[in-house]
């Protein structure tokens, strides 16, 4: 599944990094600790988090993640958005909490 298909299926908002909408998704990882993601998320994963700063994109890029989903209607900081454009990693948004959006993503990828 591509990030674009995910956006449609889970009705997510796209904040930026549109160049990466064709990225292929291999799974998901939910965490607000950057070193946890650094140590344990594999490439192609979608990262679900409440962190909205630039370093999220730094980690996402180094780990070659497919996209980042911000939960609970959180907005990305400006420098996070700029970094997303540069790196081509989509920042997506949902009004849902981490538990719910993680469950939806899990069910979608399980099919």
């Amino acid at each position, binding site marked *: 599944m591509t990030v674009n298909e995910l956006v449609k299926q889970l009705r997510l908002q796209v904040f930026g990094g549109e160049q990466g909408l064709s990225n292929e998704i291999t799974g998901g990882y939910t965490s607000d600790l950057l070193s946890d993601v650094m*140590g344990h998320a594999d490439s192609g994963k979608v990262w679900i988090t409440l962190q909205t700063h630039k370093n999220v994109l730094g980690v996402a890029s180094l780990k070659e993640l497919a996209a980042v989903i911000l939960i609970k209607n959180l907005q990305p900081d400006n420098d996070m958005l700029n970094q997303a454009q540069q790196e081509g990693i989509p920042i997506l948004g949902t009004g849902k909490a981490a538990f719910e959006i993680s469950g939806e993503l899990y069910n979608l990828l399980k099919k």
Partner: protein
Amino acid sequence: MQFEYNIEAGNFTKAGDASSNFKKVLKQLNVDPQIIKRIVVSLYEGEVNIVAHSYGGKVICEVNPKKVWIRLIDTGPGIPDIEKAMQAGYSTASPKVREMGFGAGMGLPNMKNNADILNIKSEVGKGTEVEIIVNLN
């Protein structure tokens, strides 16, 4: 080949820049992607440690056909108890740093898990030197 990067204390907007730059170098050198991933995890954690905990420092990365040798050198304050610092979950990070999702005491364990050799030398009042070696074969 040697690459050197300066790391500013407290400047989180630049944290990760050295790792990102060195990753590109390793890709250009056609290093095995799985090995690049391990190098990047340990280097990034070391870089963030200099930003979050030190008075500033530098990273010196050397590549030869056999290994990648990284030295992270800062100008203080030094680590009083390295054994404690190595424990998963132990951190001296400030509340601000923790709010950003850093400082969960996972950095040094991540470095240890991804490096073939990790050496830490530290003297309180002088500074810390972290050495990471990852074999390329």
